[in-house]
């Protein structure tokens, strides 16, 4: 296949991924809305499908649960489209496919969906799917509508093996933080309603999910910042110069560090700490979108027309 064909294929696969994520979202939403009469949560999780009692409520529950399972399947297919889109883009341009903001956001969405899909293999977190798939569809839509750049080579400063190290780490951490942000937002949204009053899991579970992904994401983000400094040392003759992107990467880092400290401080556990984590996630998003668009500086290679 020629580079042009590959690039076109990549663009089409992104559109397919958006549609698949949207379809998955519908499935997840149906499951969230109808699968569980809130009071019956525990019973259903404990029973094994075969032992569903023949009560009146069992009927809608079964189809809604199936909607949830189908949604997971659709998410996997969307994920495969997303992976292939990134791969074909990389093959078309013969470099790592995260050299501009369009490619970065596509890869970041891919990372977030990957984190969710592998988490739901191990933990009962399918409910996150409804929100992750919305973010994935909106994020990809935004990158296609606003950030899109024709496949092509990058400027000499970006033509370095450090892309593979620094940007990959930033993408992985961003993906994890996105899932953490979803869990934290759900925690606040759910409020302190009792076990039976909400379709979402208990607060403690949401809190644990948020903490777990952030704890994995934080060292990766730290590594991303440090490898960025190493690259800056190679490319610009200084490892840290308070370029706007560096400032906001640092602010994001400090904010997540504050979350981890807040969680270990009496009186800050739970709600307050998670608000801090959401502020940190806001800083991450601002660094991604805001800094490239408002501030410029050495990292202004967003290539947004």
């Amino acid at each position, binding site marked *: 296949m020629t580079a042009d064909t590959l690039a076109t294929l990549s663009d089409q696969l992104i559109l397919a991924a958006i549609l698949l994520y949207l379809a998955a979202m519908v499935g997840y939403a149906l499951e969230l809305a109808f699968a569980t009469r809130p009071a019956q949560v525990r019973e259903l999780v404990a029973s094994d499908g075969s032992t569903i009692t023949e009560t009146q409520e069992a009927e809608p529950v079964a189809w809604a649960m199936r909607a949830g399972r189908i949604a997971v399947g659709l998410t996997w297919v969307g994920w495969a489209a997303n992976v292939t889109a990134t791969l074909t883009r990389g093959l078309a341009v013969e470099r790592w496919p995260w050299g501009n903001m369009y490619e970065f956001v596509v890869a970041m969405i891919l990372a977030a969906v990957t984190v969710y899909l592998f988490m739901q293999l191990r933990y009962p977190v399918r409910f996150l799917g409804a929100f992750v798939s919305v973010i994935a569809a909106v994020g990809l839509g935004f990158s296609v509508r606003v950030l899109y750049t024709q496949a092509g*080579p990058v400027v*000499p400063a970006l033509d*370095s093996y450090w892309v593979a190290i620094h940007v990959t780490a930033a993408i992985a951490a961003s993906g994890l933080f996105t899932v953490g942000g979803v869990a934290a937002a759900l925690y606040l949204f759910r409020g302190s309603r009792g076990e039976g009053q909400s379709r979402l899991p208990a607060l403690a579970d949401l809190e644990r999910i948020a903490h777990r992904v952030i704890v994995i994401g934080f060292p990766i983000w730290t590594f991303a910042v440090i490898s960025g400094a190493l*690259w800056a040392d190679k490319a610009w*003759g200084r490892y840290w*110069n*308070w370029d706007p992107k560096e400032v906001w990467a640092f602010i994001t880092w400090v904010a997540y560090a504050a979350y981890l400290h807040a969680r270990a*401080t*009496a009186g800050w556990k739970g709600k307050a700490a998670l608000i801090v984590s959401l502020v940190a996630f806001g800083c991450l998003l601002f660094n991604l979108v805001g800094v490239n668009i408002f*501030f410029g500086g050495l990292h202004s290679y967003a290539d947004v027309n």
Partner: protein
Amino acid sequence: MTLTDEEQKEVTKPVGLGVVGWLRWGWRTLTSMRTALILLFLFALASVPGSVFPQRNVDASLVARYYANDPVKAEWLDRFWLFDVFHSPWFAAIYLLLFLSLVGCVLPRTLAHLKEIRRKPPAAPRNLLRLPHHDEFTADLTIAEAAATLKKRRFRVETGPDWVAAEKGHLRETGNLVFHVALLVLLIAVGAGGLYGYKGNVLVVEGDGFANTVAAYDRYVPGASVSAESLEPFSFKLTDFQATYIGPGHEKVGQPLTFSATLSVKDAPGAAERVVDLRVNEPLDVNGTLTYLIGHGYAPVFKVTDGQGQVAYEGPVPCLTSNTSTYESECVIKVPDARPQQLAFLGRFLPSTLPVGEEWISVFPGAANPTVQVWPFAGDLGLDSGEPQSVYDLSAHKNLKPLGTMTVQPRPLAVGEALDLPGGAGKIEFTGVKEWISLQTTYDPGRMPALVASIAAVLGLVFSLTIRRRRVWVRMKDGRVTVGGLSRTEGSNFTDEFAEIVASLNPRSGVSDDR
């Protein structure tokens, strides 16, 4: 990282009397988690203006533009160091307090941790079945066997007459402390680098050379403790510079693809010459002094003959790039040696010229069809007046008069063409095109310590976030084995591992532990 919750409670209690009491209260408050948190928030918040306002250390010309646009506001911003946020006293105050708070926490915790590491695991509690994780089974197990099994699982083990106590996961706190100490070292390394390092910028035209001395730099910024003699004595000549760009037919036509400067370098006077291909991302390294390729532009070559027929100037003139996508550049040529009048020229260099109606524009950054439009002036350059002047600017010269009629778009000269000046004032010939590169040289002795500290910080962080502290006890009485487990890290899942440990202890479980 700071005090534990119990210590925290003491902080909020009313304080003892007297100076010592107040000092202790102050220290405790400063080193409390709450204060550390507030300082972290302030640290993040204080960085924000550093990205909103232009910073002198990042781009001084943007600060100058801010002053030109709104002098009053700029004056006020400057009063609060908002153009030098990261060198401001208030920013320093925040990070110094934060690091003081850190020291106040790391020191006692390090001492406590050292004691803890040397301590034996605590003896088994009487009733293990009251622990959060517990199990019992009947088996023919000896104390030595149980201890060996736990040792294989890398527990520290202590034995009693009928019990085994085991503990692991001290690396969590070790990692935590390493991380925080590494941050302190990092700050010191950054500071030392600023004190003992220097950076300099210089522009070099193809064919010219550079020797690493203070005088050779266009801009030289030394740290407080750098002497001019300590500069690494290397030199080089720029023999060639090549840039490639994306060709027509792509959305991003004209975007640069590669920059490559060929230097012949002498590491020291008298040393053998070596040829270096200097590229972006691949600096020249001479014993830790690094030279980076950070910019490039055009330097058209001119030959100016004055009104008396003498060659008054011949050579390349570096021009400032006014449009980075077409490399249209602005040139200033000053010819103080011209007689009877001094001459000066403004030029617009167009690397790939295309006529559009009565105008000429550049359509591509590569020098495919280079031309230059020239506006001549004559008069007094005032170079003897002692007033500082820029080599890139003519506007300061009030005693220069345009030669002939000025037009907005004079017909450009191609290479080899000359412009005869009106009134027999001489002529200017455009003889060729060279390129210039801008280089930055940095020497920063703090680089390596900062790198080592950063690596230590990441490793420490990974250990402190992934390792869990847990204790296991085994008691034996009349063939009954009871096992108890306790996770000392909040929120961690010890259930699976505890079940595994119990299975590996029980010879009848069929689990062979081959670790």
